[in-house]
């Protein structure tokens, strides 16, 4: 078992309106497991808590109650830095550090190996990864502020992959890509899973993506899990009215 969520809840840290009671929760009483070797999709309308759920997994934030286990052990029992090495996170809005793509890559690995890898060898590895993500090699030397959002998303993914994590958390990684690029991106993701033996937890909005990637899904609505199981089953045979509406809504997009 990769992750186990045991009655995990998280409230909004700032309580501005006292009147609303349900709305205080960002995530409410999450109870589910995430298996290794099967892609895990997190589905749900915006504001339903998907990003917060991912951020719990690498401890950028902690739950208010409940417990999360990673490979059978409480998340809090791990050293956070080690945990974040094993669990890579690619945020919804890609954030580039100052400088070139290469300097972003160097930042990502500097804590991993005590001695920086041989310059040329490392640059080769980076270029290979860029090709793999359908980015031209010279990108390695570009300043990151010249990149488009879609390119930044892929650079951010590459930056995380260089760290050779065992789990990767992807927050709507294709939100800035057009249909063709999205399709290619998903193919790449599928290849990655096979070649790097990578476990993947991905937030997505799109039903096409959910179909291509398959695996298991969780549907979050208003911070609660309303549906879970194999993605195909959720799509074909939604158990709740709210999921039906959500799937229809996704189809409209």
């Amino acid at each position: 078992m990769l992750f186990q969520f045991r009655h995990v809840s998280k409230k909004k840290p700032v309580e501005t309106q006292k009147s609303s009671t349900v709305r205080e929760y960002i995530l409410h009483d999450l109870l589910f497991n995430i298996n290794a070797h099967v892609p895990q999709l997190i589905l749900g309308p915006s504001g339903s808590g998907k990003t917060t759920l991912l951020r719990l997994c690498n401890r950028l934030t902690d739950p208010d109650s409940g417990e999360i286990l990673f490979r059978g052990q409480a998340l809090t029992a791990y050293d956070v830095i080690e945990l974040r090495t094993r669990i890579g996170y690619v945020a919804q809005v890609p954030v580039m550090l100052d400088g070139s793509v290469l300097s972003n890559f160097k930042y990502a690995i500097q804590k991993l190996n005590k001695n920086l890898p041989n310059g040329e060898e490392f640059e080769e590895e980076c270029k290979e990864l860029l090709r793999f993500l359908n980015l031209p090699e010279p990108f390695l030397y570009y300043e990151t502020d010249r990149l488009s959002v879609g390119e930044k998303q892929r650079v951010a993914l590459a930056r995380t992959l260089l760290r050779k994590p065992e789990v990767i958390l992807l927050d709507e990684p294709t939100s800035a890509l057009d249909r063709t690029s999205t399709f290619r991106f998903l193919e790449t993701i599928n290849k990655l899973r096979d070649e790097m033996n990578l476990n993947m937890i991905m937030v997505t909005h799109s039903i096409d993506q959910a179909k291509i990637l398959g695996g298991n899904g969780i549907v979050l609505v208003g911070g609660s899990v309303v549906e879970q199981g194999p993605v195909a089953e959720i799509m074909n045979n939604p158990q709740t009215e709210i999921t039906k509406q959500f799937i229809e809504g996704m189809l409209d997009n």
Partner: protein
Amino acid sequence: MIIELSYIDLFIGIGLIVIAIGLSIYSRLQLEKDLFVGAVRTFVQLIAVGYVLNIVFSIEAWYAVIAVLLLMFGIAVHTILGRQRYRFKNMIPIITVSLMIGTGLTLFIVVYVIIQVEPWYSPQYVIPIMGMILGNSMNGVALAIDRLSSEIREKREIIETRLSLGATSREAVSDIISSAVRAAMIPTINSLMTVGIVSLPGMMTGQILSGTSPIIAVKYQILVMYMIAASVMISSVLLVQRGYKQYFTAHHQFKE
């Protein structure tokens, strides 16, 4: 030979302010009210301080000196707080401790190791020296906290990106920490570079006016410059080292 100023001389000096106020009215700058209030405050504050110091100097008691130092500290901390756009937890104790260590250590070295005053609380040395290092450290610390808080807020996403890439919270804000200390130190470094060329420092001018030989005044001024640099540096480094931690948990995540 010292030419002492009388109150009559000072009243004639008010003529200078009158010229400034007149110009402000003539040019419609609307500074006349601020100039007037400022001039009155300068007069009242300095005269009051002069008399208080006079009393403290004449009683020559350690507790009177300590009381004045504590009052100075209180005013410095209050001033720093007043200049902050953002607050973080434990701000007051962090400011106080950083200033106390920075100025205290510097004061100790200057007064007891270098000048070697007797007795240890000798107000003629302790109070003006503390005044100079505290005033400069106060400005430095105010700049450092402001820079630290605003950059940590503005760069939240970059910091979280670094954290996700395995940085500790200290590593994730290392550039902000140096930029905060730089902000604190820049005025001091500038004055180290230009002192004597562009400006004559107030203390030195005062000493020369009141009859001290320029050579003695200059030696004191060199010491003053060095002690200001040390004190601002120590205070602001201590401050940012403690200050950034208020934004993070022990698990390298932002506090909520």
